[in-house]
């Protein structure tokens, strides 16, 4: 699989958007504009961008509490995302969901989830729905190394396998589940090895190499569309920020984090590759960063100008058939 310049730059732009979005969120959270909690995916941009770059608009996706990157990579509207984080009425969920519960059904995003591994049974259902409706859509779920130890993961992988559902399980092994290292909690260090137990291909991917992620995802998507069943991808990556913004991070060294940032930053690595391919010069890079910055500033302005919902709106949207 080779990528043309347009595709390469789209990938890069997506990653830049995620990086800047998450940085912006950290800043505005620290300033008190974002209530609650946020969980940022800085350092994991290649996993989101690479996988989503081979999906169609009508393919389904579920994500996690750390879902901003997946949403952006699937094409989410930045204005509505920022407004939702700020709790405004113009947000994706009219302020009812917040960071962990954003969804955009027009893009096949069946939701972020505040329950770890909560998306897997749901995406299996989406896969079943695809099979029953006989379309060639695929259904992708992102989850973490921590989630991979939950029971519903076992159930979902088994079910997707026996029915050959068009599901792609993407575990983003970022080395930590909150404060708990993967080395401690997982009985196998390489999570993709678990796939064999479900008669499913398990692929280990350098999750910080966006082209490697893209290629692995493309193969998995092709299999799924062809009715050959599910695939399990392990995108090995690293979580640069804390589990949540404000995390004291006593469970790891600053040196370890810095090492990943200095040597394995997915943006830095892709910039090197793009430069090698003569696809990204200094000027173009600056242009992309400036354009993305402007988009985000506009999104923040939109969110800041937007009204909060009326308190009574808390009682709306509970039932499709209210009584």
């Amino acid at each position, binding site marked *: 699989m080779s990528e043309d310049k347009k595709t390469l730059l789209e990938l890069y732009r997506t990653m830049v958007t995620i990086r800047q979005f998450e940085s912006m969120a950290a800043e505005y959270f620290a300033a008190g504009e974002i209530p609650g909690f946020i969980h940022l995916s800085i350092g994991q941009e290649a996993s989101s961008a690479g996988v989503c770059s081979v999906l169609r608009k009508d393919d*389904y996706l579920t994500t996690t509490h750390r879902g901003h990157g997946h949403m952006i990579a699937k094409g989410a509207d930045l204005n509505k995302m920022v407004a939702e984080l700020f709790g405004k009425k113009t*947000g*994706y*969920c*009219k*302020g*009812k*969901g917040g960071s962990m*519960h*954003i*969804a*955009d*059904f027009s893009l096949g995003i*069946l*939701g972020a*989830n*505040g*329950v770890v591994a*909560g998306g*897997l*049974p*749901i*995406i*299996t*259902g*989406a*896969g*079943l*729905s*695809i099979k*029953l*409706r006989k379309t060639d859509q695929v*259904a992708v779920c992102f989850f973490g190394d921590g989630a991979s130890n939950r*029971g*519903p993961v076992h*159930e*979902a992988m*088994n*079910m997707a396998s*026996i029915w050959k559902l068009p599901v792609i399980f993407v575990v983003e092994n970022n080395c930590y589940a909150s404060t708990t290292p993967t080395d401690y909690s997982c009985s196998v260090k390489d999570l993709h090895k678990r796939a064999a137990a479900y008669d499913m291909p398990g692929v280990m991917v350098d999750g910080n190499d966006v082209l490697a992620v893209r290629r692995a995802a493309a193969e998995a998507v092709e299999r799924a569309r062809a009715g050959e069943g599910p695939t399990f991808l392990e995108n090995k990556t690293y979580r640069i920020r804390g589990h949540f913004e404000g995390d004291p991070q006593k469970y790891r060294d600053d040196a370890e984090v810095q090492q990943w940032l200095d040597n394995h930053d997915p943006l830095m690595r892709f910039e090197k590759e793009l430069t090698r391919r003569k696809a990204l010069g200094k000027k173009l890079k600056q242009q992309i960063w400036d354009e993305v910055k402007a988009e985000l500033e506009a999104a923040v302005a939109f969110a800041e100008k937007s009204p909060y919902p009326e308190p009574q709106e808390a009682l*709306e*949207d*509970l*039932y*499709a*058939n209210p*009584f």
Partner: protein
Amino acid sequence: MSDERILSASAALAEALHEEMSRDESIFILGEDLTAHAGIFGQFKGIPEKFPGRIIDTPISESCIAGCGVGSALTGMRPIVDFHFSDFVTCGMDEFCNQAAKIRYMFGGQVKLPMVVWCPDGAGLRAAAQHSQSLESWFVHTPGLKVVVPSEPADVKGLIKSSIRDDDPVMFFQHKRLFAKEGPVPEDPEFMIPLGRAAVKREGEDVSLLTYGSGYFLCMEAAEELGKLGISAEVVDLRSLKPLDMETVAQSVKKTYRAVVVHEACITGGFGAELAARIQDELFDYLDAPVKRVGAKDVPIPFSPVLEDFVLPSVADVVEAARAVTYR
């Protein structure tokens, strides 16, 4: 009424499913052990043959069975999730209560989630603690779900059709001991009972027996006994707990001034507690006695018949409660 045909509850259910599945291709059924014997109570008789591919046996994976209901309901299907025994809802609680109940709301009304979770429930079969429960009040306490508990075959048919056509997640509890029970069922294939519509099934003047599910049959027997004592009992079958037809309840209590709530679920935190609270709140001036509740004793359902029979509410318990509130 005189020419109405008589069907068992399970035949009424099967008929409703045939009608709905013929009408709407997006309806399908999934759960454990559905096709070999057409369900553990034969409730899916004829469906595997008539609708191949639309009734699906699953592995024993309750979280994922429930999750498949959620995911398929979000992507264009109308699943009926058979949960085998209501006791196993505990294995799908995240999917029912954190996902299905909350998805429409959390996402600001972007989607509907038309899923029916069909659960055989109830005790009296000596199946013991983990196969005998009545858990409807857990789901009444979960905003975002609807809760339906039919009693007679006509209610089963009318309510399952409404539940299937409803665009929200519905927890539908049907008592195991009542599957073979027969009753009149209207022939009209469009016969449906709206959710949130109770039925006064026996009129009376002296006390309102407010009930649902298997409790209905206790109340009807008790009403006969009470009649012999000169106490005229009105029996209100609630049929759906959420939405609840409080207006019919109110009309009844405004007439009789006395209320007893009867259910098979255990007393503490049962639906009776909720209804009693609402009655004393909204109808206090009409009450001539406290609201009493009849339910199972607060223990897990025991195995030995003598123990189970002691724990479950009886006709005598209903009579005693009615006599207490009528001071007779």
